[in-house]
């Protein structure tokens, strides 16, 4: 009895332990029958799936799996039954809340006394996270592998002894002549050497534990240098991160770059030669302040410097523009058209001498720089100027010659015509006593024409002298000259009634004048007398002092009671000189002479009506002469 009691007690103890194990084991447990219907599950199972026990017992385990896993279960159940155990079978389950998880299932079949299937006992573990990490890792590996194989630069992994462990396809391509590479020394494969290279970034990296870099030759078969490589070496550390176990070499082919650099260097040398030896001045200057940044010797010489260094040191362009606005003008021109060609600039040299330059330049605004070429065109400009001056002088001379030719042809012809006609009429009337009075008139006409001719010759001579520029300006008493001119005119008009009165307001200062002032006054007085149809020719001369623009002048007015001058002709009447259309000019150059004379003494002359608003009542010639 005691034995039975002990057995029962042991059995109870066992059940208790079993129950504890069953209830509290962390791994989900299930048992199912031959038809995979769930007989029992533990709490861990229920917690995992999210069901209550009643919802689960009697249901097929396959119902808790995704379709693919259910098919796997169905396909493997027979094997399980036959073999009796299964291990690490992967299923994808669906929890009550719809979330999918991955599990690994272990199982053992319990058989009855007869060896028949009784039930299957299974535990499983959730490997969802592990699967996720494995997938991630796999993706990562794939990615890195893709990068490793597809990168167009070379990657080489060496161990501590410089043996090649791994290379990417590019390295295999570059060193196909040294295949196979793995397991060989890097210096054997890459340089066909028996010992490490003198300059080896990988050795340096192994020694120092730091990345290293250098440019190394790329060699083909027989050590022939076929290019250049940028070689970066990085120490490869073990998993603990503490010890160097090798190096990773990252290699970039810079052969093309080196070629380009070499070409550039050669170009630089070539262009440096041209720059330094060019016969035109070449320069770079700063846009912001005009400072010269670089130039050749020829440019320096343009500005009177011995060397380019002196110019770069001492010459500030903005201070040497003769016309300061030209700097902005040229900058605007370059900005507008991207460049200028043949832009002419006047600047001064080091010693202040002006120099004309022809500039061709372009701007690099983002670099604050102008680059250009300059040549000295001073001689050409001087020649152009001289030519222009010559042209002007020639034109003036031509116009002058043309003017005098016309004067001769027209005015003298008219004078001769009148004399000739008068003489012919005198001859005609020789025998006709009735016309004897008229003969006297003809004689008068002849006399007048002769005087006209003489006056014309005299005026031409004076005009010519004035134009030569040889006249003496001196201080003169204007009243005396007026009186002398009146005396002359009175003597000319002895056969007509003529009265000339002079009025002066106060003491009159001396004026700037000269020997020709009397001719000006005479011409005006004669004009007033000749163009006068009144029975009594009257001329009033008024002399006063006036102020104009704070300057003192002597004002002389010659008023007459002649036929007057219409407004439209008041200006033109002074201008019978070198203009092309002389058809409304009439004859004589007397009034032109007046203007030329007065202007030469820095005076002014113009015409008004004697009576305001009525030109028919006579003219008023007004002269202003500067006080001397």
């Amino acid at each position, binding site marked *: 009895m005691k034995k039975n009691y002990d057995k029962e007690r042991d059995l109870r103890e066992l059940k208790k332990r079993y129950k504890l194990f069953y209830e509290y084991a962390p791994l989900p447990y299930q048992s199912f029958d031959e038809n995979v219907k769930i007989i029992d599950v533990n709490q861990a199972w229920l917690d995992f799936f999210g069901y209550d026990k009643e919802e689960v017992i009697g249901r097929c385990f396959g119902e808790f799996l995704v379709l693919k896993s259910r098919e796997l279960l169905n396909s493997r159940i027979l094997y399980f039954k036959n073999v009796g155990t299964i291990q690490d079978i992967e299923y994808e389950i669906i929890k009550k809340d719809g979330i999918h998880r991955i599990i690994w299932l272990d199982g053992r079949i319990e058989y009855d006394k007869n060896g028949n299937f009784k039930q299957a006992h299974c535990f499983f573990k959730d490997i969802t996270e592990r699967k996720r990490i494995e997938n991630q890792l796999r993706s990562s590996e794939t990615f890195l592998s893709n990068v490793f194989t597809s990168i167009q630069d070379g990657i080489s992994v060496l161990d501590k002894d410089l043996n090649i462990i791994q290379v990417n396809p590019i390295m295999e391509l570059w060193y196909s002549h040294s295949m196979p590479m793995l397991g060989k020394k890097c210096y054997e494969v890459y340089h066909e050497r028996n010992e490490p290279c003198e300059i080896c970034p990988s050795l340096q990296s192994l020694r120092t534990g730091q990345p290293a870099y250098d440019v190394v030759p790329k060699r083909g078969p027989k050590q022939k240098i076929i290019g250049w490589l940028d070689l970066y070496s990085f120490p490869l550390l073990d998993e603990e991160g503490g010890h160097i176990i090798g190096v990773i070499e990252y290699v970039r082919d810079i052969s093309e770059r080196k070629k380009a650099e070499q070409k550039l260097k050669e170009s630089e040398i070539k262009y440096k030669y041209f720059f330094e030896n060019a016969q035109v001045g070449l320069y770079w200057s700063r846009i912001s302040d005009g400072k010269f940044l670089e130039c050749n010797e020829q440019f320096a010489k343009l500005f009177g410097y011995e060397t380019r260094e002196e110019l770069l040191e001492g010459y500030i362009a903005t201070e040497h523009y003769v016309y300061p606005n030209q700097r902005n003008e040229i900058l605007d021109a370059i900005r507008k058209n991207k460049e200028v060609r043949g832009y002419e600039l006047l600047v001064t040299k080091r010693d202040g001498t002006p120099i004309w330059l022809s500039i061709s330049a372009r701007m690099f605004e983002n670099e604050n720089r102008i680059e250009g070429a300059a040549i000295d065109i001073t001689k050409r400009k001087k020649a152009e100027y001289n030519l222009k001056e010559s042209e002007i002088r020639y034109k003036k001379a031509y116009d002058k010659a043309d003017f005098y030719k016309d004067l001769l042809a027209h*005015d003298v012809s008219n004078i001769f*015509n009148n004399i*000739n006609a008068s003489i*012919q009429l005198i001859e*005609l009337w020789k025998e006709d006593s009735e016309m004897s009075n008229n003969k006297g008139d003809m004689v008068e006409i002849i006399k007048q024409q002769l005087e006209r001719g003489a006056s014309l010759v005299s005026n031409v001579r004076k005009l010519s002298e004035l134009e030569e520029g040889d006249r003496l300006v001196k201080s003169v008493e204007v009243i005396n000259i007026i009186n002398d001119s009146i005396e002359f005119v009175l003597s000319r008009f002895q056969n007509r009634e003529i009265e000339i009165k002079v009025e002066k307001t106060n003491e009159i200062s001396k004026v700037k004048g000269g020997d020709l002032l009397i001719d000006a006054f005479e011409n005006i007085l004669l004009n007033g007398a000749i163009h006068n149809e009144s029975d009594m020719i009257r001329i009033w001369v008024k002399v006063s002092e006036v102020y104009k623009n704070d300057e003192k002048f002597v004002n002389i007015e010659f008023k007459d009671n002649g036929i007057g001058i219409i407004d439209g*002709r008041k200006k033109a009447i002074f201008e019978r000189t070198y203009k092309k259309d*002389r058809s*409304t000019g009439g004859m004589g150059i007397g009034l032109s002479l007046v203007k030329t004379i007065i202007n030469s003494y820095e005076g002014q002359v113009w015409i008004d009506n004697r009576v305001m608003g009525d030109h028919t009542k006579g003219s008023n010639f007004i002269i202003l002469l500067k006080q001397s």
Partner: protein
Amino acid sequence: MGDYSVEFSINGKDAVENYKNHSEKPNVIIMDHRMPIMNGIDAMNEILKIDRDTKIIFASADTMMKEHSISMGATAFLSKPFKLEELIYLINKAIKE
């Protein structure tokens, strides 16, 4: 030399005004060219606008005006200095035409 009465104008403009205002138009006009205010060509044009058949003898020391004056309607051109016989001849010829 002939039984002619002669009237004078002091310049081209005066000549045109006198022509317009005169009830009896002249048989012949002797026109100078270079005159103040209005020259001979312009005066001739104004007069010919009034009567295209007016006889105008252009007399000028400006010989370059010969062709131009004839093309503008002058009956004849007389270059200064001229002889009286030439003038009388042209006047008579113009009147007869």
